[in-house]
């Protein structure tokens, strides 16, 4: 089973990297970009027997830092 875990910063948490990317986009002449938030994508290949609870646990215990980040689990059709 292919799983994608999207990790992003919570609202209200400043994102210096996103801001730098935003400035770089403007420097390249792209206009109309209002904001950039940088995140992370994990692709996991797991056995079908791995439960949703276990996936949730993986995110909370390691893949995301719940102090500053949110996560979203996406199951990808094989």
């Amino acid at each position, binding site marked *: 089973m292919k799983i994608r875990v999207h990790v992003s910063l919570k609202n209200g948490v*400043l994102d*210096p*990297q996103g801001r730098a990317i935003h400035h770089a986009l403007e420097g390249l002449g792209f206009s109309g970009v209002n904001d950039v938030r940088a995140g992370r994508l994990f692709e996991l290949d797991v056995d079908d027997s791995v439960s949703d609870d276990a996936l949730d646990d993986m995110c909370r215990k*390691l893949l995301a830092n719940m*102090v*500053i980040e949110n996560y979203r689990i996406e199951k990808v059709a094989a």
Partner: protein
Amino acid sequence: MSLRCAVITFPGSNCDRDMAVALEAVSGTPAIRVWHGDATLPERLDFIALPGGFSYGDYLRCGAIASRSPVMRAVIEAAGRGVPVLGVCNGFQVLTESGLLPGALMRNAGITFVCRNARLVVENDSSLFTSAYAKGQHVSIPVAHHDGNYFADDATLDRLEGDGRIAFRYAETINGSVRDIAGILNEKGNVLGMMPHPERAIDLAHGGTDGRALFESALNALASA
């Protein structure tokens, strides 16, 4: 009485030797070196130090992998029993990632790596680690980090402030840390995490000795306990 101080080394730690030298300089006893893969700590430890560096290449998040290593389970257990734990720089990141301290350390607001002497204000002069300083005292201690931008939600920050758990603040903006926080204590006061490197300021040859009082505070108190 000779103190039993341990320094934990993770793959990618690079201030572990400096920390061991500082502990020995102040306590007079060589520090015990502990490898991250050890599931148990040496017995009867008086003090545990988590050094600076770039454990696991800062993969995932700074300190994230190290905080899940076997030895950290033992460190968390020891901290729970009241054993003093000092985390400096990457060691602070390991402490927040492990949940021993609240909040998180994010990329510096200015994006760049900051390596310089930082002026700090001592906010708490009654903790185990800071009793040899005076409240409000300005000290100069080196910082060298890319991810020292402390963040926690307002409720957590208010609690830290109210309980006197902010040990040090930056006297000037260094990395964008919320409320200029440079170092914090846990609820019981036996765990201190800080981004500045006191172990790099214990000898005149370092260009300053303002870090020495931190080790003297803790180790003298422990030796006379």
